[in-house]
């Protein structure tokens, strides 16, 4: 394995970088969209329930099937992969975020409302800072899920670590399969570790 890395560093590095790119773009988009959904849900709570229900159904569809559905629209490649990953993440993020917001002590919420905060102010000034735990949990789940499902995206030419795995499977190259596995697991562990450090810092300060 080490030999393979020494001989073809680019063959490992390129998929890894592609995977990280896919992860970063997916996470940023997912969080922005989830934040917008959260604001809408804060204004109209009913919509929050509908969204969670909808995304829970979508989440149960296998990724390959979703890729297939989207290919006629967004084509083969990374765009399709990212769209699917963002949609999956909405379930993980929204479920955790909204559960966190709902868990904030009702006295605190009533006091916030009573001082004359708007619904969006209650969300941003009170609910978000008091739900950091749930927010981080949602993001960590999204990271792991994105890295995992992201490997399957190689099947529609989206690149990333999945291409190592699929190449390895096709050519029965165990070293490639192992590298694909180690790198994607390693990536998940490192990113989770970083998030954990950030979480600890937040809680400390």
């Amino acid at each position, binding site marked *: 394995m080490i030999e393979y890395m020494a001989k073809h560093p680019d063959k490992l590095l390129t998929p890894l970088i592609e995977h990280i790119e896919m992860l970063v773009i997916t996470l940023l988009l997912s969080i922005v969209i989830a934040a917008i959904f959260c604001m809408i849900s804060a204004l109209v709570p009913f919509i929050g329930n509908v969204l969670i229900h909808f995304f829970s159904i979508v989440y149960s569809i296998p990724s390959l099937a979703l890729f297939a559905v989207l290919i006629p629209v967004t084509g083969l490649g990374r765009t399709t992969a990212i769209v699917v990953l963002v949609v999956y993440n909405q379930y993980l993020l929204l479920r955790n975020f909204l559960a966190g917001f709902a868990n904030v*002590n009702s*006295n*605190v919420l*009533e*006091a*916030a*409302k*009573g*001082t*004359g*905060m*708007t619904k969006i*102010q209650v969300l941003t000034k*009170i609910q978000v*800072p*008091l739900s950091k735990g749930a927010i981080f949990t949602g993001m960590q789940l999204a990271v792991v899920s994105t890295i995992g499902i992201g490997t399957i995206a190689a099947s529609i030419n989206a690149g990333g670590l999945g291409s190592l795995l699929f190449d390895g499977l096709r050519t029965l190259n165990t070293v490639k399969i192992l590298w694909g596995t180690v790198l994607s697991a390693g990536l998940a562990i490192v990113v989770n570790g970083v998030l954990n450090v950030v979480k600890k810092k937040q809680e400390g300060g």
Partner: protein
Amino acid sequence: MNAITFTNVSKQFPKTNYKAVKSVSFEIEEGELVTILGSSGCGKTTLLKMVNRLYDPDEGDIVLFGENIRDVDPVVVRRRIGYVIQQSGLFPHMTIEDNISTVPKLLKWDRKKQQERCRNLMELVGLDYEKFHKRYPHELSGGQQQRVGLARALAVNPKIMLMDEPFGAIDAINRLNLQDELKKIHRETNQTILFVTHDINEAFKLGNRVMIMNEGKICRFDTPQNVIRQPGDAFTQSLVQSAMDQEKFWREYRD
């Protein structure tokens, strides 16, 4: 001018088959301290929350200083009214100073004015600024938290204060101190205060007038002296009687 006028106000919660507040009418003048007394579930909190539009009545009109609040944005109504709730409801992730400055911040006062106001308020409610302003609510005792809740509600010197059993969770001695401080604050600010309590002694000690509620209705609304002299209906009679029995109990023990 009347500070608060209720006209035939009723409120029924969804999925219930009774009115929590039943066709209530009353007038309160500016500067009065009215205590609301009644047994659990009689509608005190519901009545209070209709004043700052945390609840909207199903029927009737609520007019504050000549303005029907149905026509005013709830957020605007609430920023004009101080609100203190039972469990203090302090924001656990904010310092005492930030808690007290909540409304000034919402109204975008400049920092210096905010800080100055916070200092004055903490002095007013008997908390040392230097000692406490940087602390978080969980680093305070229950009584100190209540004082912060009171200071937060007083921040922009609202003309109306709503207080829902603010001293409920406080020991007897601290409670007496807070009652005296509230009286002092009331004298200094001439605010109109609605003060809910379970405690008949507190209600009669603090109130210019006492509003006695039972099952969603007001059975008596008069000065403490008049209520004690002529309790009137059976419910008020039993309330006054229970207070007197208690007093007798203490006296017998002492003698």
